[in-house]
């Protein structure tokens, strides 16, 4: 399939949707830490200055102050870069937001190594590990502008803290406007019966391209968009791997404590299948071009193809369990 190039990044789509929702919902507020022009939270702030608080370059204070604003039940969005939201402000997210289950929504741009050109300091490549570990937290990673707008609506509609990981650069479009999304949901974005490739965010595009390449070799991959990372749609994954017998997880994140670890633990309990995963292999990335970066660090379409071939070969050669 050929992917349509996107005009806008998911961070922009999220900011645009927040601005639109500002008109029909006068209760929520938005906090920023001096990255508003980058996160695109200024789209909202320029129109609703009385509901927009730029707290300066002080992410921890921004987060804990948002908790105070949300103490009485109000919804507060906190915009910023994923690396700062998920780490500089982590303790506030855990202790004064997740613990009392406040309506604070984390609007986190530059997730994964999508801030590639900026270097490691600005890459949120451990954010999923931190955020999915926190009780009460929900985690969404939209892949395109349609799902990013939906993530904004879901964050507003869902009680308690929600973390939304967004991308720095425009990549591709996939979903049609009106596509329904839900907390805990997932999408089969390509049907196949030989192997399941599960991913989220930008790497779903790589998985789709990999599936095309695999198809040319007679391997039909099923591709899952697990846009809700917490809660994750375990049933959808189990249903798929029961048909395909193999699971490959590819993610723009450390391999450790990301989606693959979550699914591996689930599958070991419920449905052990041939399994492999791609991501940052206990290392930091670097500055550079996004597409070169995800290839060098091992989660591009080409690397997904190689891993799928290895996995299926291993699966075929593995000794079969005797039928009872």
């Amino acid at each position, binding site marked *: 399939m050929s992917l349509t190039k996107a005009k806008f990044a998911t961070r922009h789509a999220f900011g645009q949707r927040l601005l639109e929702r500002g008109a029909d919902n006068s209760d929520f*507020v938005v906090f920023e830490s001096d990255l508003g022009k980058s996160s695109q939270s200024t789209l909202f702030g320029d129109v609703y200055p009385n509901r927009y608080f730029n707290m300066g370059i002080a992410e921890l204070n921004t987060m*804990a102050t948002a908790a*105070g604003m949300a103490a009485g039940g109000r919804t507060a969005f906190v915009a910023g870069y994923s690396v700062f939201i998920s780490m500089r402000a982590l303790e506030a997210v855990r202790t004064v937001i997740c613990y009392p289950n406040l309506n604070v929504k984390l609007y986190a741009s530059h997730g994964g190594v999508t801030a590639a050109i900026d270097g490691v300091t600005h890459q949120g490549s451990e954010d999923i590990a931190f955020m999915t570990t926190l009780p009460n937290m929900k985690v969404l990673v939209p892949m395109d502008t349609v799902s990013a707008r939906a993530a904004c609506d879901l964050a507003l509609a869902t009680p308690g803290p929600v973390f939304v990981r967004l991308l720095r650069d425009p990549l591709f479009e996939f979903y049609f406007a009106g596509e329904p999304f839900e907390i805990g949901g997932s999408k089969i974005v390509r049907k196949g019966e030989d192997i399941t490739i599960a991913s989220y965010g930008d790497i779903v595009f790589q998985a789709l391209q990999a599936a095309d390449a695999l198809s040319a070799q007679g391997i039909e991959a099923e591709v899952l968009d697990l846009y809700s990372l917490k809660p994750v749609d375990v049933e959808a994954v189990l249903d798929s791997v029961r048909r395909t017998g193999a699971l490959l997880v590819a993610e723009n994140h450390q391999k450790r404590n990301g989606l693959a670890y979550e699914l591996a633990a689930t599958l070991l309990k419920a449905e052990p299948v041939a399994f492999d995963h791609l991501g940052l292999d206990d290392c930091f990335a670097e500055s550079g071009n996004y597409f070169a970066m995800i290839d060098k660090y091992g989660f591009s379409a080409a690397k997904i193809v190689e891993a799928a071939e290895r996995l299926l070969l291993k699966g075929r050669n593995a000794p079969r369990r005797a039928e009872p």
Partner: protein
Amino acid sequence: MAATALERRAVELQAIAYEVRFHILDMVHNAQSGHISPGLGAADIVAALYFEIMRIDPKNPAMEDRDRFVLSKGHSCPVLYAALALRGYFPVEELKTLRRMGSRLQGHPVKGMLPGVEATSGSLGMGACQAVGMALEGRMLGKDYNIWALLGDGELDEGVVWETSAAAAKYKLGNLVFIVDRNGLQTDGPCETVMPMEPIDKKFEAFNWKVMKMDGHNIPDILTTLQAAREYRSGPVCVIAKTVKGKGVRFMENTCEWHAKAPNDEPYAKAVAELREGRS
């Protein structure tokens, strides 16, 4: 000469503060865990807030236009729990459950768990930030309620206190008062040895706060100063309260020893006796 109304009220509040202190001793002795001396030192201020200064209704803890109190030095929570119970937010009997499994009286305060607790605190600095957030909301809504936060002096080491102080001044939060419990001691020793923060008054002034000072054990001074702090609406106010850590129990006063130590029966009995002596 007849006592003034302020003096008469001060005598009543002094008695309440002593009740609070008895409960702090009881709770920590009973739990055999918790922070005694930080609460004893803050008892007069907390009693004045809950029994005189703050606009609150214990029968309606979520009253929209209530004043909010954030115990940013959350480890001192026996003083908060005792004041809330005595004020009628929950049964005094429940104070016995401090730090027990299943209790609403957690080791540090948790928002939403116990009526009257406005913020999850104990991670130092973050109560102050939440107070700023509450004050921002009040300002945004055009409300006239006040936000009060009690900070430890050691807590001022936390950089986020200064981040949030800058924000409070930016938004001219005239509905916000920080009270710094200036007892001069933190966990590992004298504040000025562990991390010198003086001049505290000039630091807050440099952050464009109005600074006031009071004797944190002189009830008339507390009432007068906090009332003045409430009435000052041009921006945030920092009240530096000179206090004695462990106030009311001489062997706990001005020492770090009883910061986080629970007394067994003997020092407990001695402490109760001393408190009785001080009250009479």
